[in-house]
């Protein structure tokens, strides 16, 4: 690497963030793992409840992101107004963000390097499966109500899918007569998917229907008996793919997704820093980070749970969940550029 490249703000920030975030994240992982083992829940199958360990995976990721946010905001003087040395730097860094973008990239890269082992090795230690499967949410028809008056529901898949398990989780309405659980037969491309029927009489019931691997392009639910009307909105019918994906690749993709809260937090720091002093910028950045990690806003919470449950994350639905956060962060960056340009005049 050339001397000029090593003196780039991104490299400086990367080094600084790695130095400050690696050890606290490792310590948090050790503490979280100990707590996870100490507070092991009493359940019938620990493997089925790995999704409940998501808080123990999110803790070290939060610590890492927190360390990177604080380090970056303290390190790069132009991320807050009226910091010592900022006038000199403003003359040296001529870009629209005065090097804040480079500092942000360095922090993201450092966090990615720390999160990669957390999302792969540490997640496996917490019980994340070594393989992942695609979970496709089957889009609901226009009127997703299955009742005695409308005993057939058709679901068309966007593209034929090779699957080996179907999960149904409808919402139940009040019975239309004396309570009798509704029995539903599932048909795939015109043929019954399983010999048994699925029975539902209240919301929250989940029925898993395993079957031999086959390609499915359309599903039909037929109400055979019962008085409980069932709603099947999008998300209540889930097709599990037969193909096995790498758990390691899934972990690395999670590490990438874990950068989204950090990106949004630093983007907001960049925006606030154009006009506000250091304490305000720190409060804004940490607040945004808290809401997007511990608070569960954004795609990270679902992704952590998906990783621990063995859901393949590289799907369009996960990408769709990321779009609002990415747009929010990008808008904050554009706002920061405009504010800084105005203040330069």
């Amino acid at each position: 690497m050339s001397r000029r490249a090593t003196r780039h703000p991104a490299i400086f920030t990367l080094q600084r963030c790695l130095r400050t975030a690696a050890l606290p994240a490792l310590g948090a992982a050790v503490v979280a793992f100990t707590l996870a083992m100490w507070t092991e829940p009493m359940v019938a199958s620990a493997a089925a409840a790995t999704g409940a360990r998501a808080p123990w995976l999110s803790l070290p990721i939060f610590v890492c992101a927190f360390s990177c946010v604080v380090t970056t905001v303290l390190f790069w003087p132009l991320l807050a107004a009226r910091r010592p040395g900022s006038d000199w730097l403003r003359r040296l860094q001529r870009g629209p963000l005065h090097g804040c973008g480079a500092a942000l990239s360095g922090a993201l890269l450092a966090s990615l390097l720390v999160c990669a082992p957390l999302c792969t090795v540490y997640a496996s230690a917490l019980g994340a499966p070594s393989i992942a499967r695609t979970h496709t949410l089957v889009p609901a028809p226009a009127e997703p109500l299955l009742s005695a008056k409308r005993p057939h529901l058709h679901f068309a898949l966007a593209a034929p899918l090779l699957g080996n398990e179907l999960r149904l989780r409808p919402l139940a309405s009040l019975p239309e007569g004396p309570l009798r659980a509704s029995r539903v037969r599932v048909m795939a491309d015109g043929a019954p998917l399983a010999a048994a029927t699925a029975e539902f009489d209240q919301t929250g019931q989940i029925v898993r229907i395993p079957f031999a691997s086959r390609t499915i392009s359309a599903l039909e639910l037929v109400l055979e008996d019962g008085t409980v009307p069932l709603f099947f909105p999008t998300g209540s019918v889930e097709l599990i793919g037969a193909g096995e994906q790498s758990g390691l690749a899934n972990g690395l993709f999670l590490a990438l997704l874990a950068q989204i809260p950090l990106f949004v937090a630093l983007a907001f720091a960049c925006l606030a820093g154009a006009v506000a002093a250091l304490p305000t910028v720190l409060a804004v950045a940490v607040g945004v980070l808290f809401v997007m990690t511990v608070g569960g806003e954004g795609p990270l919470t679902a992704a952590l749970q998906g990783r621990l449950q063995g859901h393949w994350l590289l799907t369009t639905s996960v990408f769709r969940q990321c779009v609002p956060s990415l747009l929010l962060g990008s808008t904050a960056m554009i706002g920061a550029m405009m504010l800084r340009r105005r203040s330069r005049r």
Partner: protein
Amino acid sequence: MIAGSWSVMLAAGCLAGAISLVQPRLDDARELASWAARPAVLPFAWAAQRAAMHSGNSDEVFARAQQLLDLLPTWTDGHAVFAGQFALDGGDLAQTGPERSAAAHRRLQIALAWLENARRQAGRREIELLEQMAFLPDIAVAREPGLAALLPAGGTAAMADHYLAIAEQLGAGPVVRENRTFLAVQYCRGLLDAGDRRGALAVLGAAIVRSADVRDRDLATEWSAHLTLVQQHLLGEPTDLSAVFADLRFEPLFPYLR
């Protein structure tokens, strides 16, 4: 500088004195940690619990409930409802016959073991928790009849007796056996709040049977009749509930009866 050092030494001495006087136990430290973490974590723990109910399986929902109730160790109603939901879970469609009964038995054992563990922190509500534990085997067998064969000698009655005997020893007196049927309303409300209509119906069924324990026969007949009306309503049968609405002991269920 010297004054600062003295202050630190004095503070450390006071702290050591306080610790030696109070002699804190591990449970105290745990309670303190849970008290400190509660405001920051509880809203998100609830959100995670709700998310698990929408997208997780029964094991995950119960694991999340345990995380939540670790922060609220004295909330015995919550313990009873979540344990009941887990024990009464419909199980796997693929399982049939003995395999299904064995799974139900395992869930019941786990739920009772967890409630047993919760007793230590239940404080003055321990007796109520024991009454609810005495209820659970009855309801579980009503839900999964094959379970009866897997229970220890004496079946649900012996299990209930065990918990009620402990409650009596704790000072509840013989009235604890009669009380069981009256607890059903609160328990039923909790299950309906959690969206578990089937569990609530099982509780009502067991409470109707248990109303036979009440020595005042007039009271028992009236109580049992009201429980039957509520049960019929939840089953979707046309029912005149005016007698139930006139009975304020059923007030917790009113939102589900209108």
